[in-house]
């Protein structure tokens, strides 16, 4: 009897101790996951993006990048943040023809979305910046945007009550141009969009996801009559190329040529994604078109003559019904 009790006690003790050990182990794990390299959840049908080895995503890095993205500490007079021109409720655009910097200064071009930016092979309408990390400094130092200097931002971050610890946690380094640009890019790479009626139809094989009009629009879009897909094809509705779409006969903004200095690049701009296009008006690099109707009219007309105009921009002479169908299809590219 005595022996039995001892035996039972021993078992109970073992269970209690081991379970407490396991619990404490779990607790430790919960604390440590902040620096665990995450696998990002990408939308169905999307490839996994290329991410630089030195900037793999972790909870701590994403959280730091997000805080920085929405913090006006980046601008000279602390009035605007990245989020000022990339609103979450406008699919990371700002609804303005061209964005506004500090003191109401006008930026050269329309704000592009930051969604699915992980797939961009280069940044900006002219592809001037080669990586998401390097891109971060451009709006900080642009006279028309934040009009500041990255070293001064770093100085502010070093003197901030919270940031130094957050940088240490995320990168085991102090605030610096390196960690600042890594953190914001790290957050931006997590911003995906890819769950629309079109995706339900295309990837979930739900044939009822699109209406008859949307399906007719889709046929125009992907057919040789509309030819939209040549540039706006693939999972992100862009081939990431630079094209002159016949917007002007003479371009005030030389576009890609500003980077390459090539005559053959004058008036060429990055083909933008059409995901959420319904919610990202106005359109074109200068925001010169307010509605999708205007955009479709432009492409139907074949645009203006220009020596660099893409051969794909030809008069389509779309009927009113076709235009409506095409716009309905584009609206089926809006996130559900």
């Amino acid at each position, binding site marked *: 009897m005595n022996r039995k009790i001892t035996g039972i006690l021993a078992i109970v003790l073992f269970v209690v101790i081991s379970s407490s050990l396991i619990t404490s182990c779990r607790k430790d794990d919960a604390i440590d996951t902040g620096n665990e390299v995450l696998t990002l959840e990408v939308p169905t049908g999307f490839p996994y993006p290329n991410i630089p080895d030195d900037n793999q995503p972790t909870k701590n890095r994403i959280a730091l990048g997000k805080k920085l993205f929405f913090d006006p500490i980046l601008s000279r007079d602390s009035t605007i943040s990245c989020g000022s021109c990339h609103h979450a409720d406008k699919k990371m655009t700002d609804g303005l023809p061209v964005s506004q910097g500090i003191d109401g200064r006008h930026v050269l071009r329309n704000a592009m979305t930051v969604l699915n930016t992980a797939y961009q092979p280069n940044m900006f309408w002219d592809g001037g910046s080669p990586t998401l*990390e*390097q891109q971060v400094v451009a709006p900080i130092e642009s006279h028309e945007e934040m009009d500041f*200097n*990255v*070293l001064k931002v770093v100085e502010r971050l070093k003197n901030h009550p919270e940031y130094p610890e957050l940088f240490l946690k995320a990168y085991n380094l102090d605030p610096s141009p390196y960690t*600042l640009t890594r953190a914001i890019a790290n957050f931006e790479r997590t911003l995906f969009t890819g769950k629309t009626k079109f995706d339900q139809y295309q990837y979930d094989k739900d044939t009822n996801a699109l209406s008859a009009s949307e399906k007719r629009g889709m046929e125009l879009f992907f057919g040789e009559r509309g030819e939209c897909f040549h540039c706006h094809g693939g999972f992100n509705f862009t081939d990431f190329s630079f094209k002159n779409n016949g917007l002007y006969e003479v371009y005030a903004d030389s576009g890609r040529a500003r980077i390459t200095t090539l005559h053959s690049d004058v008036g060429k701009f990055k083909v933008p994604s059409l995901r959420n296009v319904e919610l990202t008006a106005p359109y074109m690099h200068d925001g010169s078109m307010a509605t999708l109707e205007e955009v479709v009219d432009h492409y139907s007309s074949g645009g203006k003559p220009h020596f660099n105009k893409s051969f794909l921009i030809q008069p389509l002479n779309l009927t009113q019904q076709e235009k409506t169908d095409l716009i309905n299809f584009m609206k089926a590219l809006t996130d559900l």
Partner: protein
Amino acid sequence: MKKNIIIITFILFTSAVVFTGCKKDKDNGPAERSISFHLHTVVGNTVANYTSVFTDATGRSFTLSDCRYYISNIVFIKDDGTELPMTGKVLLANPATMKYEIGNVPVGKYKGFRFIVGLDSVTNHSDPATYPSSSPLSYQNPSMHWGWNSGYIFMILEGKVDSTAAANGTPDYDFFYHIGLDQLKRTIDFSTTAFEVKSYEDMELGIVFDIRKVLNGVNIPQEYFTHTMDNMPVAVKIANNWPIAFEAE
């Protein structure tokens, strides 16, 4: 046995002394010495600064508020023609700094040297954030890098110029020249400027860079700006002046 040990110890000891002695006999000093540029950034006969009023070649007055430029790809050419590239060494020059340490080179005679104003294309398109803060290639304030494209600004020249038609006023009008782009780097050739690195002292090569010559043929009030891509003619004009603006002292 004991005797043997003593003999061996003796031999080892003396030979060690002999070898050490030999080394001392051969060397009259170190085999390498530090080499620097002693670089004067001037306007005509005056060292450039941010307070004086200068005149350009046409007599028009101007002031400077920023004048910085990259020097890189420095190569020393030894007497036998061997080239000694100072790989990775980049200088960010400004008028207030005269001495720029480049590194150590072997003692001996040299035929000359050369360098480029600007950066090679690999360096030019590298990420400034990846350099330590002590590197001239790290982010600067004011910036020497274009965020909107992936390149460095090889030379910044900013100030005010007299904009009166008769050029008889005072500098009142802003000018700014930001010159970059791979194809605008320029080689500065001093390959026949012979010098000797002596074992008993560090070497300083005297060089003068004349901003008046940099602005040769530039009508400053008319051609008052370039970010290179937005005004290529002015950028090319200035870059083409770099080689003639350098002189060995």
